[in-house]
């Protein structure tokens, strides 16, 4: 079987703020034999516009996405939220397109398309996992991220209490309803701290930015690390906090 041609959809947030996550996806997928491309014309899936009520802007970004990612065997995003936007909402905005249907959140792509759960990763830390709402309820990734994490050597996985409760990010919700968002964040952080984990892992940098921002403000010492970075980490090339 020839190597699948994968378009990496980095998402605007990860491209801009978390390049290490995008590089981790690249490294991981190449390690697993994929031919990965990053089409330079990509920008944003339009979710923030759509969710805030700006449908027209979102529609034009959906159309842009369909053009930019045409022709790949699969498109992989390190985000359940943006992946959900593309697969579930873009068709409604733009009409159906292969680019939408072939878009996967990272854990789905690994488990469902490549059929692997052990990606040969090594990450000797105590980790707890927060399933983000859109990966869970829009895409239905289920326990795929956990299957992947359980196969990581050295990793001590601890269960997060009330894991499936929203962290309170919600895009513009965090600003428009800042007090409620902060209350939800507070409860999520309490659950994270109760696990005694050193690392909080999730498949969405947006939620990690929110929870991590709170954890850092409280100087808890708990780090937030995207799933891709844990899975990319090996004994030879271990994960290192980006400066």
């Amino acid at each position, binding site marked *: 079987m020839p190597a699948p041609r994968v378009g990496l959809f980095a998402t605007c947030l990860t491209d801009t703020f978390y390049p290490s996550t995008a590089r981790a996806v690249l490294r991981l997928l190449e390690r697993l034999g994929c031919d990965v491309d*990053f089409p330079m014309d990509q920008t944003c899936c339009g979710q923030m516009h759509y969710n*805030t*009520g700006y449908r027209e802007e979102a529609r034009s970004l959906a159309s842009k996405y369909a053009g930019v990612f045409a022709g790949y065997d699969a498109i992989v995003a390190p985000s359940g939220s943006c992946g959900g936007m593309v697969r579930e909402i873009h068709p409604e905005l733009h009409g159906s397109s292969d680019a939408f249907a072939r878009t996967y959140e990272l854990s789905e792509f690994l488990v469902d398309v490549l059929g692997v759960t052990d990606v040969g990763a090594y990450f000797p830390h105590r980790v707890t996992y927060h399933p983000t709402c859109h990966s869970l309820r829009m895409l239905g990734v289920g326990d795929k991220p956990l299957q992947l994490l359980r196969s990581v050597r050295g990793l001590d996985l601890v269960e997060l209490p009330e894991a499936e409760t*929203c962290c309170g*990010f919600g895009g513009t*919700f965090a600003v428009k309803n800042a007090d409620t968002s902060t209350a939800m964040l507070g409860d999520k952080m309490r659950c994270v701290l109760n696990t005694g984990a050193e690392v909080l892992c999730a498949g969405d940098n947006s939620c990690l930015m929110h929870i991590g*921002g709170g954890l*850092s403000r409280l100087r808890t010492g708990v780090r937030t690390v995207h799933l891709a970075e844990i899975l990319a980490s090996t004994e030879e090339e271990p994960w290192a906090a980006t400066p």
Partner: protein
Amino acid sequence: MGSNPVTWLGSPVFPKAAKAALADTQLRRNLRKATHTIRDKRAKAVAELPDWEQLRRAGEAIKDDVLSNLDTYLERIEAAVTARGGIVHWALDAHEANEIVLRLAREAGTDEVVKVKSMATAEIGLNEALEAGGIRAVETDLAELIVQLGNDRPSHILVPAIHRNRSEIKEIFQREMAEKPASDEPRDLAEAARRHLRRKFLLARVAVSGANFGVADTGSIVVVESEGNGRMCLTLPEVLITVMGIEKLVPTWRDLEVFLQLLPRSSTAERMNPYTSVWTGVTPGDGPQQFHLVLLDNGRTDALADRVGRQALRCIRCSACLNVCPVYERTGGQAYGSVYPGPIGAILSPQLVNDMHDKQAASLPYASSLCGACYEVCPVRINIPEVLVHLRAEAVEAKGRTPESVGMAALGWIFNDARRYENAQKVGSLARHLAPSGRISSLPWPGSKWTSARDVPTPPAESFRTWWRKNRG
């Protein structure tokens, strides 16, 4: 149509009301305890049925059929009820419905009516209207009684006093009842309510109820309850007046086999609620000998005209969406400023008000992080997040040009072109370029509302695309 009493006059916009509610630590404890108890129980009750998903899909389809043929089914139930000795009335809005009930109560020569808990009558402010007309409405559902005696507002569609814990309830009862409760044990509180209402039930001449379902082809009305106050009201008085939203229909008797499974497990997490009453018109020698059915529009036809929003009319008022909602759990129901709080309230109230220039109503669709927990549990599969986003678009349109819309348009323009986007990334960061003074405060990037509780990520030395161009390009 004047202002719709479905939202309470003078209520602050949601973020403001939420801020006040969040500061009430007792309220938050009460809500957390109640919602967490019911969540786990609901999950268990639902897991017991192997065909739950099939029932949900059937429930959704039956309700969609009702909505698509609402005129036909309404005419059908009207004919069936009339044929069985009932009298059907139509009310366009709250005012008309209240007038009808007031007139009927007066005709029956009573100055007091007993009431079964009903969202429809809460929505139209019936108690206040009757009061103004010199007729006392006695709420008989325990939670409604707590709200009524406490001079309070409801905060949940199933358990309007969910924001009160047992000791608060005991205080209210001690203050308001002739016979005080023995303790704050739920059993004693229930006993106190029983004694308080007993004579009223036995002597009542007129009762007012809502309806959970109306069966179009037989004219049968269904009320689902727990305490027996419903049975008291539906059985003992001479006159029964039922106010039913026009969307509460099911086409046939058989359709109830779906809803009598979906509703109890979703609402009180029971295999079956203690009592369900079904009656059709008037039965000689059994129950009220005069039966009036008031069919209520009050904004429902406006919601029906909205192709995305109309799915909210499938709602069977089970309250599962409230119980799982992380926002509701923290703010409670009163922050929504409506008898319909929580996720369903956030999509239903603005549609019934039907005016996105109403700031309070327009703030409700934003009262959600779009986590989707509501959609996941809704027994009739209302895609609440979809409707929330749809109503947000209407709110944006109604507002016209605002700093937010200008910012969003600018951001859209940048995102539409990778070069513009990359330039924006390079000038410091995309975010700061766009919101130098935090003026576009609705963006999820640095802004004072963000930084009040969270640190901002440090922008990296280079974006991923810059790295890619250097190393792979």
